[in-house]
């Protein structure tokens, strides 16, 4: 090779992987070093209890965090009591595990409590170039910061806590390019839904997705988090976006940001020109309209201005039956019973501002139940300082304490069987928000507009 070392162009994901790969066994599985762990009450207590029973230590308690978000109540003035049957036990088990192993916990009424993925970003638990795991499938939200983030199961959590590593085969890579500039009424949520609608709910086929392109470069950090969040619904193993200036300034403002900041190191977290990806997909963001789902998979989506499409097969027929919709019905004429703004997908401050813009000076249609659940205490505080809580309340929305809330049904709160809900969450699966609940996924602006009109609606033209 004449002494010159050829420089192989490398993807961002490969660079992140390389930084954390301890070794790769003959069987193709790697041991990946995990810098940070964050766990919630739904599974954290079980994993910590299992470790205690094995008489194992948490290998690096300084890197492990606990947060109460999944089954905690969101009523103002809440305590440990939950509407979720047994929920209090889950909270108690996490608290006990955290105390036993000396882990920092963001407890029910901690000033920094919130949905784990928001807390990770707000606190600087997730940073560019770090690896992070959480026993929740939307952990890849943090790829928006240039973090190598994986959602894991409970047994894997135990393994990470005991060994600081994750056993994982390296996924294939996929570059998803969102070209062009989206219309002003189109958000990251709409682009994510359109992507899933175009390529399918398993479109990423377990690959590590890197989002790139003009539309991604133009997005704020929060919108990138929404996009990466929905990569799970795209069938991705994880997602990343190369961290740029705005990401660096946002992570540097967090309490756990390193001083001095390794800015030079972070700025190398990019895909080299010419790097090889195993798969590619492209979408023209300029052509996308605000989206809403009509079925029971995120891939069952269409423009809010379109009609319910004719079913393509048995799955779509089943979805239409569950959703009680007829093909050909204009989506904008579909009456709703409830509106939900919340979840790790769309409950950051920008989401609340966007909904509040639609709601300002207006009222939710008679008979529509409407709920806004900020994603974290920080979001809640900022919103309240800006008077957004008043906008929501004046419009007829309930204003809640942070948590996952009605993003999923765990036996507690639900809008009720047969109710049709427009929701900023990420899953419209059968019964996801409660037995028989019919969920339509959409952006915060579409949810707010629908709440005001009493039927699925587009936000006003801007």
């Amino acid at each position, binding site marked *: 090779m004449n002494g010159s070392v050829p420089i192989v162009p490398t993807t961002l994901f490969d660079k992140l992987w390389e*930084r954390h790969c*301890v*070794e790769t*066994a003959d*069987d*193709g*599985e790697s*041991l990946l*070093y995990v*810098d940070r762990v964050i766990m919630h009450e*739904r*599974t954290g207590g*079980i994993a910590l*209890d299992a470790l205690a029973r*094995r008489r*194992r230590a948490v290998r690096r308690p*300084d890197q492990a965090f606990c947060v109460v978000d999944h089954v905690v109540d969101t009523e103002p003035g809440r305590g440990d009591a939950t509407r*979720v049957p*047994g929920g209090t*036990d889950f909270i108690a*088990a996490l608290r006990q595990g955290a105390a036993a192993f000396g882990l920092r916990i963001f407890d029910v009424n901690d000033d920094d409590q919130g949905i784990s993925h928001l807390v990770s970003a707000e606190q600087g638990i997730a940073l560019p*170039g770090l690896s992070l795991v959480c*026993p*929740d*499938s939307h952990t890849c939200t943090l790829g928006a910061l240039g973090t190598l983030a994986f*959602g*894991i*199961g*409970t*047994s*894997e959590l135990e*393994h990470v806590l005991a*060994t*600081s*590593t994750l*056993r*994982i*085969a390296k*996924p294939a890579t996929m570059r998803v390019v969102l070209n062009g500039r989206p219309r002003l009424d189109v958000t990251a949520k709409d682009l994510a839904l359109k992507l899933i609608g175009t390529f399918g709910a*398993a479109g990423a086929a*377990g690959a590590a997705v890197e989002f790139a392109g003009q539309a991604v470069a133009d997005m704020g950090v929060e919108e990138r988090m929404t996009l990466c969040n929905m990569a799970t619904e795209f*069938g991705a193993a994880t997602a990343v976006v190369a961290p740029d200036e705005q990401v660096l300034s946002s992570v540097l403002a967090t309490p756990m940001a*390193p001083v001095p*900041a*390794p800015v030079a*190191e972070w700025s190398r977290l990019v895909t080299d020109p010419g790097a090889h990806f195993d798969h590619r997909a492209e979408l023209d963001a300029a052509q996308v309209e605000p989206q809403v789902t009509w079925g029971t*998979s995120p891939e069952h989506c269409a423009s809010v201005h379109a009609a319910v499409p004719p079913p393509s097969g*048995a*799955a779509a027929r*089943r979805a239409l039956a569950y959703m009680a919709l007829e093909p050909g019905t204009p989506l904008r004429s579909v009456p709703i019973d409830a509106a939900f703004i919340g979840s790790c997908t769309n409950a950051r401050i920008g989401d609340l501002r966007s909904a509040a813009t639609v709601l300002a000076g207006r009222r939710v249609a008679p008979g529509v139940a409407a709920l806004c659940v900020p994603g974290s205490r920080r979001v809640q505080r900022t919103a309240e300082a800006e008077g957004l809580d008043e906008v929501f309340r004046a419009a007829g929305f309930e204003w809640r304490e942070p948590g996952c809330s009605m993003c*999923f*049904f*765990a*036996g507690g709160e639900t809008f009720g069987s047969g109710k049709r809900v427009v929701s900023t969450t990420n*899953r419209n*699966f*059968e*019964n*996801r928000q409660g*037995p028989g609940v019919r969920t339509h996924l959409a952006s915060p602006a579409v949810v707010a507009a629908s709440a005001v009109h009493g039927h699925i609606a587009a936000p006003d033209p801007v």
Partner: protein
Amino acid sequence: MVPLTVHSGVAVPLLRANVDTDAIIPSREVRRVSRTGLGDGLFANWRYVDGQTGRPDPEFVLNRPERAGASILLGGPNFGCGSSREYAVWALAEFGIRVIVAPDFGPIFRKNCVANGLLPAGVPMAAVRELAAWSDRDPQHNRLTVDLVAARIKGAGEPVPFDVSRAARIRLLRGLDDIAMTDCRAAAIDAFEAERFAAEPWVRLP
């Protein structure tokens, strides 16, 4: 963990696409801080008339007498998509499922299966349908035999090859425990960590 080498059993088909973990075990069926007590909640929304663990729906395939004792689940594309909840795998295991045959799986679900000794066997949809059709004719008699050593499923005709990662195969064949396996690599992990902290001190929280 109980090793899995060759497994014969009654198959049960649930061929719809995108069966998610909420469908496998609705979160409301997870009532205790425990890995057990989940079998009754398996597919609760479909298995019971009222969706609650009360009256079994006699029409639902898992409740059919001819499927009694089923241990091999035949599924559709993107099986086990959705949340990371390991309760879904614990519920399947408690019900008696050892093998899930489907074209592909949710990535976290697949790993959770292996961690609990369940085999996620990847087989193209057309072949899943053929296995199901043969089983349908006489489920109790037409048992499938899953051979993890040869990575093949025997139904009526030629054995059907299935896809499983090498790592998962070895782990299942030997019934290995992940933490014990990794403990053998403790020195490598310590060395890697020391290097990482030296090269990038900011990684380490004070």
